[in-house]
């Protein structure tokens, strides 16, 4: 056991800690620390300080720095201390530098030499201390200096050194992957290390390597699987047990690696199914660590090539998580649900009430996780409810970081799934109003473009309706105080273009509003620029229409103010306004034609219309033009042009035409029943994601490089406005939608039935469910039962719920079908259908033979073939040996590595672990007498400590009895 308390420090130091402990305010604490810094500065530079004293000074520096003060004056002393030959001093020195310095600090260069020397030391504790420092302090420039030494240490006789060497290489890999790329074989070798600690540590770098590129490691799948199998079967030494689970941290790391290796790889995944199934089966859902393993298993299942049985098992675990009372488990359940929902969209249905509970939970963390889930399951039928909720939440929070995040989510969903133009504009207005400064400017440009172009329909009346509804809403909003700049820009632009278009509002009304705005936000130049341009447009439309223009007095003063503006941009705009007003109707119409924002502007890059003029000038003896490259000594012209571009990027709209939407690459899904489906089917989330992915990968809009915020107009067109059902002309989308239709069509029967079953069950359990919640559930989840139009055994049901889906808000309609079908639950389709549908891309044939058994056979065979020639011997000794020693070494070496260790310490170990187990299970209560006998009475212990402290002359006044309280008690 460690030294009991053992306050080896001087009274001075103890006093310091005590006085800080008793400080009543941060200011008081700061005063004490500053005094301490002064003392230390003085003391530490005195000559000939004894080592012990120096060590204490360094620790005091640590303390000062930990409390958030600057102790940089002492760093050099810490560095000096690492040079010390005396191990305790060296250790303190290393501890201090790892805590003080980041890997880019100038002093590192002074330590590298010491580290090099220490890595070669024959005392393994010195090497360990140096390796700790290596992990923290060596940066990509200094890696070469220590790399060969660290590699040598991989075969050190002490396992602690090997382990730290592996971790050091891992940190190198993280800082500069290329530096260790030639050492990968060493990691593979360490995976077979005798010591499970080293093996466990090796999983860390391997995880990173596999994460970067899984292909070179596919051959390790079998090894990982068999390691996991053996760990799960309790073959590691008892000391690796944690709360009775066999080496859970190793298991979790392995599951993470398998998830990466099996992702999209059927062959590799097939190796894993058995062992993952075992892990889930053995998972103990009563302990926290057991749940951690179960959660990791679900992640693994959702990442690898899908397997029906595992998905089912995972869904069961999720159900357990969600039903739990613990917030932590609910959180994990929601997260896991979000992962699994991509594979089997149906499983969310049975948990709808649990999800809604989480959404309304006071816990912010849980709420945000639930929004994450909702985001993943959004479709056109429930987008309104979800986005509304998100916006409500967005308004309620003040954390900018998350606000930005959720605002971009709202925008993304609205752009993808908007059911109507009107709704879209309203939603965007809300987002802009409450988080305008946080959203990407592109979103604003997209919104303006949408209003200008409509949504792909050719109907002129819808166009103008859309615009006038936008104008109306903006005129309403404009009065609100403190609108974000981006939003104001949108408002100005829309009012300028369409404010007077429908004739409802007079020019003077609109211009008055614009002037008010320019005045209210007078220090925002961009808004003013937008406003003045809007004014120009309105006046010129007036002139073009032949009406007389009466400029309001406030307009006049605004223009005058801007004419003298410091900003040349504003000045120019003001002058333009002035001169446009002076022109006649015909000229104005040519300059600013009405509603022409979407028209292409043909730019004559060669400026050919000036040719005549140039010709004449040259004839008159002017110098001919010399191109930019030929001139030397001139100012770099490109500056100007780039400035120009920036300018247009800031203010202007994009004017280039869209490309014709290209048909997406046919997806992997085999199209089913191409022609038979005429219904519009809500595209399930995962398929939609794939579809859009294809579209973007083809590379459509001009801004392909931009972040996820851009508007995917091409893919979306068909979703907005009135859907045209069976138009053969709608070439691009119909091809990609058809397979979707085909699949969801097959879904029908099961969707209904499973939903019926579940909601029936849940109703039985809790009779009084808040009708509010049910309504919400219906609107959130009801959408997925939309496609039932197909006549099936339960035709009544499907019709009714299809009706309900058409009116998602109508909760009664959504519930009724459940009732009617409640009596019909016996008419269920064969269960394997459900699995089939879980993942549309797979067609799992109903297994005739148990696949797990087959797998097991395969696995065993492959293990024994890879592992060792002495298969016969494996039978009487656990085959973990053969695994760790690899095929080359003999059984005995492996046994020498493991068994005696466990044998020797078995008694002690089991005692310890049983004690730990008892404490683990009793949890926080600390009532078990066993733990008392092991730990000693707590009261007595703390009394002893108290006495010791008093002896030292330090009396922490017992105003804070907590200090004495057992952490685990």
């Amino acid at each position: 056991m460690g030294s009991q308390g053992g306050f080896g420090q001087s009274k001075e130091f103890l006093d310091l800690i005590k006085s800080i402990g008793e400080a009543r305010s941060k200011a008081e604490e700061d005063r004490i620390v500053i005094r301490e810094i002064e003392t230390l500065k003085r003391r530490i530079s005195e000559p000939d300080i004894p080592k012990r004293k120096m060590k204490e000074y360094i620790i005091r520096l640590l303390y000062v720095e930990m409390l958030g003060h600057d102790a940089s004056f002492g760093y050099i002393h810490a560095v000096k201390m690492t040079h010390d030959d005396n191990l305790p001093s060296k250790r303190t020195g290393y501890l201090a530098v790892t805590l003080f310095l980041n890997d880019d600090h100038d002093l590192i260069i002074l330590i590298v030499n010491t580290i090099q020397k220490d890595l070669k030391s024959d005392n393994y504790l010195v090497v360990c201390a140096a390796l700790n420092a290596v992990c923290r302090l060596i940066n990509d420039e200094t890696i070469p200096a220590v790399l060969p030494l660290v590699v040598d240490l991989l075969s050190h006789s002490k396992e602690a050194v090997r382990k730290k060497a592996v971790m050091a290489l891992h940190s190198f890999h993280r800082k500069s992957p290329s530096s260790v790329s030639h050492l990968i074989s060493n990691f593979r070798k360490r995976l077979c290390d005798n010591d499970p600690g080293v093996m466990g540590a090796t999983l860390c770098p391997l995880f990173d390597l596999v994460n970067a590129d899984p292909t070179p490691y596919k051959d390790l799948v079998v090894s990982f699987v068999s390691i996991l199998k053996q760990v799960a079967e309790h073959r590691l030494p008892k000391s690796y047990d944690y709360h009775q689970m066999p080496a859970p941290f190793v298991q979790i790391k392995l599951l993470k690696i398998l998830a990466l290796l099996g992702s999209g790889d059927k062959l590799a995944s097939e190796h894993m199914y058995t062992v993952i199934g075992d892990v889930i089966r053995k998972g103990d859902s009563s302990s926290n660590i057991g749940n951690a393993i179960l959660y990791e298993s679900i992640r693994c299942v959702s990442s690898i090539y899908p397997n029906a049985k595992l998905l089912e098992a995972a869904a069961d675990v999720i159900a357990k998580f969600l039903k739990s009372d613990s917030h932590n488990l609910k959180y994990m359940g929601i997260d896991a649900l979000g992962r699994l929902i991509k594979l089997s969209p149906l499983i969310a249905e049975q948990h709808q009430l649990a999800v809604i509970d989480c959404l309304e939970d006071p816990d912010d963390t849980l709420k945000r996780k639930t929004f994450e889930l909702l985001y993943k399951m959004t479709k056109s039928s429930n987008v309104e409810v979800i986005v509304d909720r998100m916006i409500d939440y967005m308004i309620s929070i003040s954390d900018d970081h998350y606000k930005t995040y959720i605002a971009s989510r709202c925008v993304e969903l609205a752009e993808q799934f908007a059911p109507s133009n009107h709704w879209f504009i309203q939603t965007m207005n809300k987002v802009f109003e409450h988080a305008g400064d946080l959203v990407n400017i592109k979103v604003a440009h997209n919104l303006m473009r949408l209003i200008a172009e409509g949504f792909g329909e050719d109907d002129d009346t819808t166009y103008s309706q859309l615009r006038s509804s936008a104008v109306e809403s903006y005129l309403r909003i404009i009065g609100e105080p403190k609108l974000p700049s981006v939003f104001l820009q949108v408002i100005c632009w829309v009012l300028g273009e369409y404010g007077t278009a429908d004739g409802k509002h007079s020019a003077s009304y609109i211009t008055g509003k614009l002037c008010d705005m320019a005045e209210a936000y007078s220090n925002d130049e961009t808004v003013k620029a937008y406003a003045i341009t809007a004014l120009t447009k309105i006046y010129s439309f007036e002139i073009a229409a032949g009406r007389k223009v009466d400029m309001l007095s406030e307009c006049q003063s605004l223009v005058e103010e801007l004419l003298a503006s410091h900003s040349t941009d504003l000045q120019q705009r003001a002058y333009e306004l002035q001169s446009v007003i002076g022109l006649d109707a015909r000229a104005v119409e040519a300059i600013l034609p009405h509603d022409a924002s979407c028209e292409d502007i043909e730019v004559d890059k060669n400026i050919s219309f000036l040719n005549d003029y140039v010709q004449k000038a040259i004839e008159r003896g002017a110098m001919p033009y010399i191109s930019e490259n030929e001139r030397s000594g001139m100012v770099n012209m490109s500056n100007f042009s780039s400035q120009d571009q920036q300018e247009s990027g800031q203010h202007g709209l994009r004017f280039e035409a869209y490309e014709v939407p290209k048909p997406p690459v046919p997806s992997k899904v085999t199209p089913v029943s191409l022609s038979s489906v005429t219904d519009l089917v809500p595209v399930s989330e995962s398929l939609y994601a794939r579809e859009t992915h294809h579209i973007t990968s083809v590379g459509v809009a001009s801004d392909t490089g931009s972040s996820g915020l851009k508007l995917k107009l091409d893919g979306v067109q068909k979703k907005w406005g009135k859907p045209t059902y069976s138009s053969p002309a709608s070439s691009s989308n119909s091809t990609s939608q058809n397979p979707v239709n085909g699949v969801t069509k097959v879904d029908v029967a099961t969707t209904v039935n499973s939903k019926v079953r579940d909601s029936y069950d849940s109703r039985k359990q809790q009779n009084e469910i808040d009708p509010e919640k049910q309504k919400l559930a219906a609107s959130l989840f009801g959408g997925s039962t939309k496609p039932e139009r197909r006549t099936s055994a339960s035709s009544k049901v499907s019709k009714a719920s299809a009706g309900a889906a058409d009116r998602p808000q109508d909760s009664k309609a959504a519930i009724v079908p459940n009732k009617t079908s409640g009596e019909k639950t016996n008419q269920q389709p064969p269960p394997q259908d459900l699995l089939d549908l879980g993942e549309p891309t797979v067609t799992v044939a109903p297994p005739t033979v148990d696949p797990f058994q087959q797998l097991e056979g395969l696995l065993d065979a492959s293990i024994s073939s890879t592992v060792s020639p002495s298969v016969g011997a494996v039978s009487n000794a656990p085959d973990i040996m053969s695994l760790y020693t690899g095929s080359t070494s003999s059984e005995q070496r492996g046994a020498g590595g493991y068994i005696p260790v466990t044998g020797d310490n078995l008694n002690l170990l089991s005692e310890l672990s049983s004690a730990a187990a008892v404490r683990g299970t009793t949890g926080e209560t600390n009532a078990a007498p066993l733990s008392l006998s092991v730990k000693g009475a707590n009261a007595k212990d703390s009394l002893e400590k108290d006495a010791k402290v008093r002896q030292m002359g330090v009396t922490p006044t017992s105003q804070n009895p907590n200090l004495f309280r057992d952490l685990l008690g």
Partner: protein
Amino acid sequence: MIHFVLLISRQGKVRLTKWYSPYTQKERSKVIRELSGVILSRAPKLCNFVEWRGHKVVYKRYASLYFCMCIDDEDNELEVLEMIHHFVEILDRYFGSVCELDLIFNFHKAYYILDELLIAGELQESSKKTVARLIAAQDSLVESAKEEASSLSNIIAQATK
């Protein structure tokens, strides 16, 4: 990956900080201030996780001390929660029913233990016994290097304990 480990008392006093990702002193104080604000104000029955600046912070309260670890978005929160518990169990074994006072006066020892448990932001050792053995080996060297004066009585005291 674990970005940092924080131990703060219920009064918001810092008991231990360990940074595995580079943070300047200024950022460190800011992180501590922000997080202690968020974590200390959370009600007892809520999640032990907080989403924070694109990362997640897992925390657990033991007596009056909060153990917090900041992890990546993709990490397993429950696992990290157990890492914290693992750390506390090792501390408990080392100090013998550890209490906050032990950590206040022996924070450097807590650092040594943490260094044997986590390295470069990853769990390096999951066996309590191995950690305990290494720490004991290091301590015995420290003990032997101590001045003669107290050596004999100390050894006797240690042996009879």
